[in-house]
């Protein structure tokens, strides 16, 4: 069992860690390494290839006519909310149907 003094010092330490973490999150520069004071770009080694020199529009294509419609997602059955007693009753019916109980018990339980 920690003493009150130890507990207080532990709490302080945890608060400090939390504060530091928060500051680090809010002010990234506070924890990030300092940027270089000056930047000298490296000398180009090759002529860069331009991303886009010119743009030629592709020829228009015919829009296909859909023949049938397919739903993108086959819908799942909407779950019916069941209360716990209902869920238990359904479970009992399922276990009876699956033959999980001994015969004597199942006979008594079947409606």
């Amino acid at each position, binding site marked *: *069992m*920690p003493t*009150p003094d130890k*507990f*207080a010092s*532990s709490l302080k330490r945890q608060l400090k860690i939390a504060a530091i973490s928060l500051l680090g999150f809010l002010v990234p520069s506070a924890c990030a390494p300092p940027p270089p004071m000056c930047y000298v770009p490296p000398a180009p080694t090759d002529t860069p290839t331009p991303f886009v020199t010119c743009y030629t529009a592709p020829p228009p294509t015919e829009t296909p006519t859909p023949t049938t419609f397919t739903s993108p997602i086959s819908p799942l059955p909407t779950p019916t909310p069941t209360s*716990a007693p209902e*869920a*238990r009753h359904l*479970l*009992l019916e399922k*276990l009876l149907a699956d033959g*999980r*109980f*001994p015969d*004597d*018990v199942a006979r*008594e*339980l079947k409606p």
Partner: protein
Amino acid sequence: MRPRNWFQATLLRWQQELAAEGARLSGGRPARAGPYYILELTSRCTQDCRYCYNVWKLRPELVTGELDTRGWCELIAKVQDEADRQLVTFSGGEPLLRDDFRDILAFCHRRGLESILITNGGLLDASTLAFCLDHGVTMFELTLLGADAETHDRLTRTPGSWERALAAMMRLYQADAPWCGVFVATCENVGQVRQTLEMIVALGATAVMFNRFNPGGEGARHLHLMPSVDQVRDALAVVDELAATYDLFATASIPIMPCLIDTSPYRHIGFGFCAAGRDNAYYTVGPDGRIRPCNHSATVLGDLRTQTLAKVLAGPGLAEFTAAAPDVCRPCPGLAACRAGCRAAAEVCFGSLSEPEPWLRANLERLPPTP
């Protein structure tokens, strides 16, 4: 207020949630306050379970006899008067084996006591059930060890016990009686936890208890039945899911040490720790009237036939029992709450309260480094 670290706070929160859940399920009534008293009416039993924790299975000298009807009634009256309790729990052995069970129960009922009956169900016929319901039994506790007869009966070493247990559960269901289904998880049956609990739930249990096998008594001869940590973790996930789905009051009464399994994800399970000496203790009176810290313990605190309850509980035995802990657990900040698992199991299996209990000992390599 004493300062608490996060570990203790978490355990305290679980306890509060458990109490709140208990109150909710009892219709808003606050759960009955402890300490509780378990009365082992007899050491005789109709089964021969390999996992049984009854200490006399290993040390027969711990039971020097069996109180007669008058002896039990006098002792019950004494506990009620001295402890000011209105609830007793009947256990054994198999309590229904006593010819005078109805006399003892009727005596309790006349004195306004409620009762909990722990039974394997084999003798809980319709007539006995009706008598119990008419005489103050407000909770029945029955064990189902598997989803098939083979699994259950192999653990009980009693052919037909699975069918008899289910027949009793069916009668409880038909009578709309409050009952708790217990699953004792061993390495042999833990894989059936879902199917077994589904059967318990379908038969109307209001609560489920998931107890990892805690060696003691006969169980001390079968340490190999202990489930692995991973098996227990997987099973807890199933219990938690079923508790949420079916609005069950689910508990894990045998300690699950947080250093072995982080139990925080299982929000629908109440986790219990050793209660000896605490407000929720369940002191256990053996068949001969001698009292122990709990039903797993072999420590005899005193004799209720000749001593007062206050004197017995104030004696050195209980203090020694509750103070004990293995060296490996001493540095742990959670020791005060966790109590290093089950001291009684360590005592029975290894002869010392200060030994790591069997499940902890089997998993020492999993413990986090000492802080």
